[in-house]
């Protein structure tokens, strides 16, 4: 192709919809007499059509929830507001809560010592409490500021405050804990846990 580059430039200007009427006329006149430029132009138009023809693909399912799960934790203030919305029972008991919260938060902050409910079958290594394989712990276990590893069985409820339950992934299949399992790692959970406990205790007294 020995045509001046200017015709290729016109083609691109045309494709960008930015060609002047004068230049468009020049391009059209040239295309009528030049087979090379004509096929070049056709190829460009075909290329664009091909690229545009690729079907639009969509983000995978659960994309949004995956993003939301990876976001850093939100500011506590809004979290607290939403938490109240989701637990209307607590909002109703807000007067009671106001009286309690101060002392509980203080409790949360001060109470950083490792502790566990006493049970002869529990083994304690550093800050990890172990329910040994083959052993059964009768009664509830509460671990504070430590982790719990469940290799054996627990006949009761399990609560871990400020720690992890390591054996968690096995629980569903093995059914090693007969009661409820709860991990408490945040101030709100801590408050909630106490609210429930107080409610439960109250119910028991009423009974």
């Amino acid at each position, binding site marked *: 192709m020995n045509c001046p580059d200017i015709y*290729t*430039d016109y083609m*691109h200007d045309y*494709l*960008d919809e930015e060609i002047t009427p004068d230049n468009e006329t020049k391009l059209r006149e040239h295309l009528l007499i030049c087979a090379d430029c004509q096929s*070049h132009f056709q*190829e*460009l138009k*075909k*290329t*664009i059509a*091909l*690229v*545009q*023809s*690729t*079907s*639009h*693909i*969509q*983000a*995978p399912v659960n*994309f*949004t929830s*995956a*993003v*939301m799960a*990876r*976001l*850093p934790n*939100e*500011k506590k*203030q*809004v*979290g607290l507001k*939403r938490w109240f919305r989701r637990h209307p029972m607590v909002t109703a008991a807000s007067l009671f809560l106001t009286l309690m919260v101060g002392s509980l938060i203080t409790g949360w902050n001060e109470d950083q010592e490792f502790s566990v409910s006493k049970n002869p079958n529990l083994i304690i290594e550093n800050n990890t409490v172990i329910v040994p394989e083959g052993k059964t712990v009768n009664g509830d276990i509460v671990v504070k500021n430590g982790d719990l590893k469940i290799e054996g069985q627990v006949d009761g409820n399990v609560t871990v405050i400020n720690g992890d339950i390591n054996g968690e992934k096995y629980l569903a299949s093995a059914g090693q804990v007969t009661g409820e399992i709860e991990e408490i790692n945040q101030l709100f959970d801590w408050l909630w846990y106490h609210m429930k406990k107080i409610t439960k205790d109250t119910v028991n007294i009423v009974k």
Partner: protein
Amino acid sequence: MEALVKKRILQVLKGDQDAYGEIVELYKDKVYQISYRMLGNRHEAEDIAQEAFIRAFINIHSFNIDLKFSTWLFRIATNLCIDRIRKKKPDYYLDAEVAGTDGLNMYSQIPSKTDMPEKEIESLELEETIQSEILKLPEKYRTVIVLKYIEELSLIEISKILNLPIGTVKTRIHRGREALRKQLRHV
């Protein structure tokens, strides 16, 4: 749409994380599409697209509310894609595709090609060809071609997203078109 997005951004700025979920819903397909066409691998595309939304969230306070949110978001996404392309060894791609490990090409998404009508197979193969030719473009041409012809954005928007003068964007589109023409003319 921009008005709704701005409302949500203001909520996010006040600390309401849920409002961000709506923003993700609105733009997820576009951001994923840019990433997929730039990277050619669904797995990586998902990773980069998620990363783009997370970075946007973390830096939302630095977003100028008077601007178009999509421009800013697409800039984050294209920058992440370009970074990923630059870090990647050129032969990484081929290996991954030969191994066919995680649904990297369109075929592997479809269990049995033999059950499909001839025409669908053909259009699928054509689409694969086009995608692989886009991937052969140097990244600076690939970016503008994807933004222009797949996202259908204007030259002005592209120049804002890439933070490049409009003349540079035009030149890149012209060169990208020419390169693709040579690759696709016999298709």
